[in-house]
């Protein structure tokens, strides 16, 4: 396996991990917004 192939694999790996993080932080943002929604419904 040449050096270029390894770096190409790493490039794709990095991209996939960044996409994964976007999904994860979207989930967390969703939870935050849902909690704000609960806040708006309650008398906290």
């Amino acid at each position: 396996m040449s050096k270029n192939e390894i770096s190409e694999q790493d490039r794709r790996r990095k991209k996939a991990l960044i996409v994964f993080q976007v999904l994860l932080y979207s989930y967390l943002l969703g939870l935050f917004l849902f909690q704000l929604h609960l806040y708006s419904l309650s008398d906290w």
Partner: protein
Amino acid sequence: MASTTFGVYDAHQDNSKQAQWRADKWMIAGTLLMGTGVLGIFGLPLFFYGLHLQIQAGKAGLSVRPLIVTLIGYLVIIDSSLNSLGWAMDLFANHSLINRVLTAGWGAVFDGGYFWHYNELTVGPYAVGGAGAPGEKGWEISLILGCFCPRLAAAIGLLQMKRWGQQWLIVTCWMGVIVWIGYNLNMTFYADVRYANITFPVWGWWIYDIFYITPFLSLPYLHTVNREIFTD
């Protein structure tokens, strides 16, 4: 001739090691203080001074640790220490003055799970005390033992440029995914307990905790860094 060449190399190695250790002493002192939480403000300038020393040594041509490894390693140590110490106090020192002031005080502002009915938790006839929010004690015990202490050790290994340090940091970063998916979901299900009648409901907790919700950010770097820079 050969001995002269090796002599120069050895001297460079020695100087690099000394410069790294000199910088590390300041950063370790700063991190220890920041890891306590209460003394954090005093630790920050010490840490920055050590960081400055390391950057200067790098500019002078010495072989010091990559800056990104230094930042990730020390940040993880601070994160793990704050969580382990804070939760250990809630578990074992929940009637101490410092805990009742700081943890319950923090709870009154950000998280009612650490304020309302604080120190009233019992298991059958046994007094447990500390936070009584549903699920909280399970998270505390499992994450101190299973995540934050191994993560602290991994960060020390990473700073020593050990392969096991890099590998275990990757393992505990992935644990962070479970931690934050589960912990926040638990908080959402018990939002009535966590956010009722506190100073800054919902947004206060998120602003305070966003710093902690970062373990996965270093995954792209850790998975693609040249593994050869770490030693077995």
